[in-house]
């Protein structure tokens, strides 16, 4: 190659490199959304494939492009292991070109990923996990806790049960960030309402034999057995409690039940249980429409986290569009500025600590006679207004909150 052409080639390459950020405001010319979910473990039903599909639906409904650039969806299985989740998130942010990670079922994983996101200055939206750390000690401008959290569960189901007269509590708690955080929040509510916590038994994730824990709960003579676990753990605990006759003298309070859990328990066992969910498919026309579309793709009704995966992905893409860039700081500001009005919620707003505040709902599981068909499981009991459903900003320990 002649010297001059080599020079001009170098010059044009240099020009291309320097011109690139000015012409496009999207890093590496694609907006990539990562879904980090439990694809194979105990929470695969309530996150997993459904979460990935929900995000894909949002991207398709958005048009597949934003600011003229392609939107790409990738996913990975965190196996419910914080180290694996954090390593994947780190890799996605470092070399995968991922701009935002969604879902993050499993509180331990969500906490680990929140730390990475803060360091790498990239967005995460937590829908599957409940741990309060996301909007407190681990908060950052890049983390949003969207669907629900332990505080809202405690002030939904927990409070309702205490008000119905359940004053003494014994907890069956799954032994990691999620269960322990939830137990703490519900204990606070119980004590604030002059109730008493008489004890707790902690079991590992994915326990199949609950006999010794149920016996401890029975021996405690507490009026309420609070089940601070979810998914298959909660289902197994509830079944074991019924088999051991614990439900004769004591009442169960399942502190986080998903519609899939009701599905696998069956209405016969689950009827009458109270549960706090941000969203239920059969609430109004819009939610039914989304539910049916989701059903066609995945073969089951969506739960609140999956609906929130869709809604929050939309919110992120709208923020990118409004900001005119995928620059994390500018998108963060837009996400906290724009209100959320869709089938998931009305007048939802993202606070400075990353908490998306919206109304929560208390539901009761229908009796087999009340249910008219498949997936017709819940009836509304009460609306928990946004102001009461979430931790007041004044109590947040997030460093972004000005005191």
């Amino acid at each position, binding site marked *: 190659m002649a010297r001059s052409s080599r020079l001009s080639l170098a010059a044009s390459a240099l020009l291309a490199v320097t011109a690139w950020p000015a012409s496009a405001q999207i890093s590496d010319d694609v907006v990539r959304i990562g879904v980090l979910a439990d*694809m194979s473990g105990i929470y695969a039903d309530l996150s997993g494939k459904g979460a990935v599909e929900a995000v894909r639906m949002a991207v398709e409904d958005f048009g597949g492009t934003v600011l003229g650039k392609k939107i790409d969806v990738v996913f990975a299985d965190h196996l419910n292991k914080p*180290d*694996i989740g954090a390593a994947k998130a780190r890799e996605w942010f470092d070399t995968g070109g991922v701009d935002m990670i969604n879902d993050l079922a499993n509180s*331990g994983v969500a906490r680990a990923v929140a*730390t990475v996101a803060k360091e790498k200055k990239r967005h995460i939206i937590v829908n599957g996990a409940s741990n309060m750390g996301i909007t407190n000690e681990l908060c950052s401008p890049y983390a949003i806790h969207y669907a629900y959290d332990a505080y809202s569960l405690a002030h939904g189901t927990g409070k309702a049960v205490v008000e119905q007269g359940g004053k003494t509590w014994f907890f069956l708690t799954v032994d990691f960030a999620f269960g322990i955080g939830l137990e703490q929040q519900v204990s606070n509510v119980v004590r604030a309402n002059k109730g008493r916590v008489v004890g707790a038994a902690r079991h590992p*994730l994915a326990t199949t034999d609950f006999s010794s824990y149920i016996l401890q709960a029975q021996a405690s003579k507490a009026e309420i057995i609070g089940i601070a676990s979810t998914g298959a753990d909660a289902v197994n605990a509830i079944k074991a409690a019924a088999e051991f006759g614990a439900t004769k003298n004591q009442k169960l309070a399942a502190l986080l039940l998903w519609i899939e859990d009701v599905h696998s328990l069956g209405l016969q066992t689950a009827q009458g249980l109270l549960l706090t969910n941000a969203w239920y498919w059969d609430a109004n026309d819009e939610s039914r429409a989304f539910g049916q579309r989701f059903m066609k793709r995945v073969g089951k009704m969506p739960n609140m986290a999956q609906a929130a995966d869709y809604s929050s992905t939309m919110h992120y893409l709208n923020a990118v569009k409004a900001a005119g860039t995928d620059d994390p700081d500018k998108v963060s500001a837009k996400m906290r500025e724009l209100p959320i009005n869709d089938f998931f919620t009305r007048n939802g707003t993202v606070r400075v600590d990353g908490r998306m505040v919206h109304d929560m709902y208390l539901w009761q599981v229908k009796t087999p006679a009340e249910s008219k068909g498949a997936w017709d499981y819940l009836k509304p009991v009460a609306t928990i207004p946004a102001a009461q459903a979430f931790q007041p900003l004044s109590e947040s320990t997030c460093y972004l909150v000005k005191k």
Partner: protein
Amino acid sequence: MPLALSRSLLVLLFAVLVAVPFMPHILYPVFVMKVMCFALFACAYNLLLGHTGIVSFGHAAFFGTAAYVTGYALRELGLPPEVGILAGVLGAALLGAVFGALAIRRQGIYLAMITLALAQLVYFVFLQAEFTGAEDGMQQIPRGVLFGVLSLRSDFNLYYVVLACIAGGLWLVHRIVNSPFGEVLRAIREHEPRARSLGYAVDRYKIIAFSLSAGLSGLAGSLKCVVFQLAALTDVHWHMSGEVILMTLLGGMSSVFGPAIGAVLISALHHYFDALGAWVTIVVGLVFIFCVLVFRRGIVGQLNHMLMQRPSVTRSAAANIKEKHHAAV
């Protein structure tokens, strides 16, 4: 393997490793750091399995304990990384000595079971202890500043520190294997009563081998903890003990660095076949079955064997002598 060939391969490998941080999109440095940790772990494990003939099924305990000790030192005590890593290594070596002293009272499968039982004890300690965060793992471990000058916050700096530590660890493995001490270990492996009759304090050698293997495994665990800023139950779980055996056997336990190849292979399978989800385990299983059926010596063992078999008078003569020697033993 001929010396010149292996030496030039080594130089090439080292050059590639040094270049990795400059091409993060081809080879992700954090992944390479993880692979290097496992490579050291497997080679350290092979000190026992391949060179002393002791099957330990509890090496995750050393790997994980070092990770937790380092994590505790860095996060709770605020110590600098060099002290944290040293503490992890010492902790693991000490634990190795304890395991060794108890386990070598039996042999073969019983010894393996004792190490497994002890490792499970360690696992449950970390599951229940307050500071470990149980299933959540010990998170937000700061990487700190090495020797008060080099900030490890950047992956770039950390990469070369890890590379240096791993190279040092592997060199040590090489030294141990090729020392008079290593000869004694092999003598014990081949014929323990004979080694004893020659006057070697067999038990003491075994315990030291245990401790060295554990300490070097610990170095791998500590480094992994610093890289990921996390110490988790995965590191102490018996799966990890199984994984390291798999790596060692795949790579070839007759060589010094063979297990490192096994570690690279297994880590790469996990990394690049990530999308298969739970199927990765099955793929790894199939690879293992294939390996055991077709080349039982492991990858490096088989390569060595093939290179040795090339017709050459001096080599076959040497092999003859070796065989006679074996027969005599």
